[in-house]
């Protein structure tokens, strides 16, 4: 992908939170890591031709932080800042951490009112599709024999 090089260049500095850049806490922080990695991808073929901006207003006790994900015809950029967006998500930090590590499914969380979203549902769905699957998902299971299937059904 030809944009990748360009993206890599700008990714880390832009995505690192101001004031925490380079600190040990910042490097280990899963949220920062996730957005840095997303930014670094530069181009997501999944969203080829599509554009949307999603802002996350993250609440952490009394602190608040903002992340802005901009997708422009498939090119993705993440900044640790506010700004106008097609969809605005308001979410507690622990829930965001669960989402970006795949421990919680975003669609299910939305149905449980674990975060609020204003604006475009399509933009929200694009954000959801950037999230990883559950940890431990391998995509394969052990084959099952005919005998085992029959036994499950109480047949010999």
């Amino acid at each position: 992908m030809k944009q990748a090089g360009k993206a890599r260049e700008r990714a880390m500095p832009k995505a690192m939170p101001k004031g925490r850049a380079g600190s040990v806490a910042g490097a280990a922080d899963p949220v920062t890591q996730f957005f840095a990695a997303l930014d670094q991808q530069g181009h997501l073929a999944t969203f080829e031709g599509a554009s949307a901006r999603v802002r996350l207003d993250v609440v952490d006790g009394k602190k608040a932080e903002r992340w802005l994900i901009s997708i422009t015809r498939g090119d993705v950029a993440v900044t640790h800042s506010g700004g106008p967006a097609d969809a605005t998500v308001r979410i507690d930090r622990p829930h965001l951490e669960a989402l970006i590590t795949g421990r919680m499914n975003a669609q299910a969380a939305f149905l449980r009112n674990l975060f609020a979203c204003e604006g475009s549902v399509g933009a929200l769905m694009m954000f959801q599709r950037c999230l990883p699957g559950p940890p431990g998902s391998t995509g394969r299971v052990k084959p099952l024999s005919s005998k085992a299937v029959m036994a499950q059904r109480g047949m010999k």
Partner: protein
Amino acid sequence: MSAGLVQILEGNTFVVSDDRGDIESSSSDPTGLFSFDTRFLSRWVLTVNGQRLNALSTDDLQYFQTRFFLVPGSGSVYVDAKLTVIRQREVADGFREELRVLNHENEPVDLRIRIDAACDFADLFEVKDALKKKGHYRARVADRHLVLEYQRETYVRETWISSSSPCDIDAKGLSFRVTVPAHGEWKTALDVVVSSGSPAGAAAGHGPARIRGQRRVRRDMERGLEKWLRQAPRLECDWEPLGRIYRRCLTDLAALRFSTLTMPDRSLPAAGLPWFMTIFGRDSIFTSLQALPFVPELAATTLLALAERQGTRIDDFRDEDPGRILHEMRYGELTAFEERPHSPYFGNADATPLFVVLLDEYERWTGDTKLVRDLEHAARAALAWIDDYADLQDNGYVSYQRRNKQTGLENQCWKDSWDSISYRNGDLPGFPRATCELQGYAYDAKVRGARLARLAWRDPGLADRLEKEAADLKRRFNRDFWVEDGEYFAVALDGDGRQVDSLTSNIGHLLWSGIVDKPKARAVARHLLGPRMFSGWGVRTMAEGEARYNPIGYHVGTVWPFDNSFIAWGLRRYGFSDEAACVVAGIMEAAEVFKGRLPEAFGGYPRMTTRYPVQYPTACSPQAWSTGAPLLLLRVALGLEPEGDKLVVDPALPVRMGNLELLDLPGRWKRMDAFGRGRVDTDRVTRR
């Protein structure tokens, strides 16, 4: 579902009530107001002076609107009607019920009118299982509304009930004390609004947080249906029932239209009414294919909606992979708490190749290359899924095996019941299973993907590779799946690569996909129309004589109209026009018996034994792909095929149909007419 139940709907909101308009749900009568896969009213009972009412008549005015004419009384033969009660109900974000009480006496009458309301907030998945709820209930009066509420942690669902006329509101309902003048009338409008109640909103006691945007007005819906019918091609036929069948299909298809939250102005076919008013990858694709010559825009919306939700990651709970097309989407409590995987669930092995098939077929009819370019990545990802994720046995065939062992689907093909795939002797194969029709779909997806790569993606390299892979798949398939001693294709290969050798209707789909070597096709057609498979009404899902054959077994002997429509298409593809006409005749004649609305499936009994097709009891009617079956059969009967910018018409109609005209068929040719005359004697097969 019991007889006498009335259902109306709009999108995924629907009401099922008794013929008085009352809702008293029980496990055997799943009545209620449902929205987003959740019941929002489980009790809604009208009384006048403490008495229940009797139904005089019930009119389904539109699919989203019903009127109940009622009189007070205890159900004796003779009703002394001095009052008439009219309830007119229409579905929107919940429903609105106009309640009118007419006094036929010469003097005023004092009445106590009462609506009892309650809700269990059951998830659709729980409705029949009567599972115990984990949250707690509350009923409160707020801002002149009765608010029924269910809360489990942060999950909140509410029903807001109000009346346009003054009333007393308590936790169990609304009461009116009214005086109706002599020969006069009293009326009120009851509003029931469903809400997903954000925690903040609920605490503050503000109005309902509507799940969907603005309430739509009835006029728009009515106009929508009229316009829909007017824009569809016009049908004229000597065989009178066909006109009725056609109109019924179009009207039912209109009712089955469903809008997603991301595309509120467009619609795609949901799977069935009312319990399956949601996106199903397979059902929406098959129905869009069937309806393509008549309403091509359904296909475009289906493709866009599925692409928007295409898999992007490995998720074993949801059987999700990158590029995979979803199976089913749900919004209820069990999905919300990840007790069911439908957020969305991806457990099917056919929708992904069929996505590419639909995209290509859509372009052939409409010439809409823009959509093909817009969906280039989605289609490439779907094609990549076939090779990268579906080849579970590393043998070059598409297989399935669920990774979600608790709530995932065992059989991830259209025959998704547990016993649908078996050996001749009735034994069940292990997993993974590579059913034959999946290989056909994969073959077709590669062939069509190659065409799209050349036409719109400017990637001849991909096209060459796909064509090579398709040819190789076809060669191997005809060798590995062919059951020599029976001269048909095995229904599947099991986990050891051994043939699962029962004879099933799946072989008909192979003709449709084009994966069958020409010399083998005649034997396949002979089986499909032979006495073991063809009942006289249609092709059975499983041949008589197989150990698991049962004429009323869901996927092991019943006749499915949808299945037959694709089999007929396959027969025509291989030049078996007369055989296709026999399937057309059988299913259309069954549709006549069912008054135009084909059920999902009917019994596989021989036609000349039962005389009437015996309906298989299913919860949903109409079912989308049964609704679409007559439309595809019309295409097959007239031999409609786009070739370049032309529409080729090559009719092979049953004699009984006489003259058939289909006028103003939309497509890349703008509008075209098709004519045919019945010349095929189908009775020798359908009534043998």
